[in-house]
């Protein structure tokens, strides 16, 4: 495929998936404290990228296999470096190897690594360790109502941006006296400014009109108060974007009654967890929404709601949509837009067919059937058969 044809293809397919086209590019006026755009690592040998793949637990390995299968079928110029992380091991060697691999390659696709919460606090959550070590400060999830998926609400299009490294997930806990435990929630000015800036930049790039900060500053006056203050400060540098704030319990109530009112939402770690899961549930469940974790130097892609899916592992009933859409986000990140759009279009056409729906969508389809259907869709409309 020539470069020109790739550009033409991506240009033609882009409007299909981006419902709002940018109004026009405005030069960012706000104070930049860090690199504004991350450049993907250059392609290695012969134009092929190397991406770290961490299969994880539960349904992770089978979905990772399907991603590899699909990429091979579409001749995507990506090689996967598979790093297995054994969640039953108490030593942190596995996760450190994975982190080193991601540092080497710059990008990763991962499944969720299970955390046994009955183990003592010295055993930290592997996923959390990965995020904090690589400073993947923004967790972004784009929840859109998909055609062909029946839900209680329609026309949802929300981007949730969640601070990924501090807040309630600092894992700083201690038992002062037996029976009294303190857990620290840390909010810093630098990280709050950083995530707020990321949110507004993303909103501007995607042509979004409104950013809502979710908080509980009426109770946690200092902590969430600081977060809110930082958001307001950053908002002043983006006059074309409306900024408002909402308390988290009211937010969840509004999300289940009128989710169409939300556009982009930015919040600290724990509220982000709650709100992004509610949004994912509203558009059809954990099997449909991809998630991305962005840092200054690295990017890791996974399913949006980070479920292990232990109960449905190895039964060929998992919904591969979330993982495959995450791989499309990965391709977009590597600037392989042509492949990304092609795969995405095929996934959306497959989802529309309710006969192929897996159990989480109320159907009886299997994972392999869905992936096969996606590959068939690519075959029939893909570049092999398309005239340039």
């Amino acid at each position, binding site marked *: 495929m020539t470069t020109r044809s790739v550009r033409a293809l991506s240009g033609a397919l882009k409007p299909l998936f981006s419902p709002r086209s940018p109004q026009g590019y405005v030069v960012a006026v706000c104070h930049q404290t860090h690199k504004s755009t991350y450049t993907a690592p250059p392609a290695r040998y012969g134009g092929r990228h190397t991406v770290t793949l961490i299969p994880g637990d539960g349904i992770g390995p089978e979905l990772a296999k399907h991603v590899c299968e699909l990429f091979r079928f579409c001749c995507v110029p990506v090689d996967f470096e598979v790093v297995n992380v054994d969640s039953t091991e108490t030593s942190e060697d596995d996760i450190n190897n994975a982190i080193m691999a991601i540092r080497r390659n710059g990008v990763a696709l991962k499944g969720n690594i299970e955390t046994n919460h009955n183990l003592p606090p010295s055993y930290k959550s592997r996923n959390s360790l990965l995020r904090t070590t690589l400073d993947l400060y923004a967790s972004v999830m784009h929840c859109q109502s998909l055609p062909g998926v029946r839900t209680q609400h329609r026309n949802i299009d929300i981007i949730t941006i969640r601070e990924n490294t501090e807040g309630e997930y600092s894992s700083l806990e201690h038992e002062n006296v037996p*029976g009294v435990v303190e857990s*620290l*929630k840390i909010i810093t000015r630098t990280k709050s400014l950083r995530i707020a800036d990321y949110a507004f930049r993303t909103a501007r790039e995607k042509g979004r009109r409104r950013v809502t900060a979710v908080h509980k500053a009426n*109770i946690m006056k200092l902590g969430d108060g600081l977060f809110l203050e930082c958001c307001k400060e950053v908002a002043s540098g983006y006059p074309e974007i409306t900024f408002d704030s909402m308390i988290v319990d009211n937010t969840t109530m509004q999300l289940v009654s009128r989710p169409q009112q939300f556009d982009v939402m930015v919040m600290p770690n724990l*509220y982000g967890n709650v709100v992004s899961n509610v949004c994912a549930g509203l558009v059809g469940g954990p099997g449909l929404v991809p998630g991305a974790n962005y840092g200054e130097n690295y990017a890791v892609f996974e399913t949006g709601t980070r*479920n292990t899916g232990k109960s449905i592992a190895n039964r060929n009933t998992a919904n591969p949509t979330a993982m495959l859409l995450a791989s499309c986000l990965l391709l977009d990140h590597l600037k392989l837009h042509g492949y990304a759009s092609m795969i995405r279009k095929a996934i959306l056409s497959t989802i529309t067919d309710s006969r192929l729906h897996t159990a989480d969508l109320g159907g009886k389809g299997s994972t392999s059937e869905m992936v096969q259907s996606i590959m068939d869709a690519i075959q029939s409309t893909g570049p092999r058969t398309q005239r340039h």
Partner: protein
Amino acid sequence: MFSVLFLISINKQQNSVGRKKIDFCFIFFSVVTGSWGYIKFERPHQCAIKLVCFPASQIQTVTLIPGDGIGPEISNAVMKIFEAAKAPIRWEERNVTAIRGPGGKWMIPPDAKESMDKNKIGLKGPLKTPIAAGHPSMNLLLRKTFDLYANVRPCVSIEGYQTPYTDVNLVTIRENTEGEYSGIEHVIVDGVVQSIKLITEQASKRIAEYAFEYARNNQRASVTAVHKANIMRMSDGLFLRKCREAAEKYKDVKFTEMYLDTVCLNMVQDPTQFDVLVMPNLYGDILSDLCAGLIGGLGVTPSGNIGANGVAIFESVHGTAPDIAGKDLANPTALLLSAVMMLRHMGLHGHAKKIETACFDTIRDRKVLTKDLGGNSKCSEFTEAICQRMKDMD
């Protein structure tokens, strides 16, 4: 009073430090007042006698706090409905505004405190918290004064008030005194703030046992503990341990554990899979409002706060709505359903069922509804419709 005493049981056992404990339980019946009850003597203990009395059709006094904004009018509506239902309740109205007590500490007026301590049961309308008044919110003051440790919110779908979710029937029980809302925050250095989430064994044990007790008393099949112990290992781990220990004592109630994010995810897809949920403060705040949203919002959600020493205050959780105050437009459903919850708590199930049925039937009928429910009737008309329905039932 002339009463007959029967010895039911003598229970001898050894407590954890090896001292012998003897319990005697007597049941008595009073011929004159028609009331009966049981007396338990526990020795050696500080509170040697525990007396529980069930008055037969005796009028009980309840402290009523009308509140601000639409509070007075919805309280009047509830009083009227209770009168029409011939419920054996006498209302004692009290006002709560923060006053400075000796030592400069903010407290509720002493007559309100006295009334609540005497009556043990209270019904409260919405209270406003003036910004920059210098004192903490009234709800917080009440919580601290009576040690209201459990917030119970039953969320049941209301027929006639359509929401995208049908057949919701769950109860959220939230720990109300500690957790993330401990209020302990400090600025470490400029730009770094630390908020402390406090979890104690005692509070977790108390809420867990209350949750199972509630499930048993209200014929609920299962209790689910909601937590984030994969991340907050020590704090939520402690909470979870206490829930597991309580589950051991209540084998007739099924116990499950679920992560907070999984609960949120499943709640918006299929809320019918949940029964009773028990959780620490913050998760409880978020989830209880989420569930209220599923059934139609705070205007139709009842709520009860259970405290130590048998105190229970039932309340409506919506705001004071100052824009419609005094205009006879308010919807008394939330306060009414909270009052029904109160009746059930007091054991007056017959009256509770009557009032609840009348309320739901009126809403289902869709003829007389207040504005927020989709109609254009006045509060007084809605109240009258419910009263009329109850008269027709007799």
